[in-house]
């Protein structure tokens, strides 16, 4: 079997769907963030695959490297905010945080 572009795209699509499912079904803020990581990595797979099979250049891989860094930065900021929220509310469940008006 030859591994080609469709295989990469399939994996990435599955990963993206799993991530989106995680985001929508999780109550835990950390769980939601993990879903987001999956979605970002799905996009990364796409970028690297397209850079190999479509553009034949290094641009997509560069993009993937930057996305990895940004994902880490975002995770750091988000976890810090979750920590602050845990100290204030005593929970990390996103839907039980309801001090603001609906």
């Amino acid at each position, binding site marked *: 079997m030859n591994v080609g572009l469709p295989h990469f795209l399939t994996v990435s699509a599955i990963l993206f769907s799993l991530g989106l499912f995680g985001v929508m079904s999780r109550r835990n803020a950390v769980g939601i963030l993990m879903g987001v990581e999956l979605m970002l990595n799905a996009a990364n797979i796409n970028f690297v695959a397209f850079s190999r099979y479509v553009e034949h250049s290094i641009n997509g891989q560069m993009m993937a*490297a930057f996305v990895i860094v940004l994902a880490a930065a975002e995770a*750091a900021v988000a976890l810090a905010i979750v920590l602050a929220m845990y100290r204030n509310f005593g929970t990390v469940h996103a839907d039980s945080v309801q001090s603001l008006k609906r």
Partner: protein
Amino acid sequence: MTAMPFLGTATSALTGHYATVLIFVLVGFVFAGLALGVAKLIRPSNPSPAKMTTYECGELPIGSSWIRFNVRFYLIALFFIVFDVEVIFLYPWAVMFRTLYPIAGLGAIVFWEMIIFLGILTLGLAYVWAKGDLDWVKKLTERPENGAATAALEEEASAP
């Protein structure tokens, strides 16, 4: 890229590489299995209850290993992430540095760009350090506002 003769010359270079990995993995499994199997055959079998306990520095383990970790570990993990992922930029830079450095007008930029980048990161580390977030136990005496901050929390918790 020499295709491995025993796989046939028709395999592409890519498949050839994967075959190497596969063979490596197989050899690993066989080696480990062989060592364990031979040991089982020739060692004496003499089980006792003490031998079956989880090893923890000679002590009997207390409680479950599924415990809540101190929230401080998360902070340390955050700092680690921030200073860890910089390597993703350093590595490609280091690979290209030797090629790019001799080019006139480019060498200085390539060098100083990375210095500036690392300088900003160092500044971030210094900021964290000076704010006392690297200490395992934060010194509360240095922050007189802390008691007031708790009061503010209570005040705002009661606000509508």
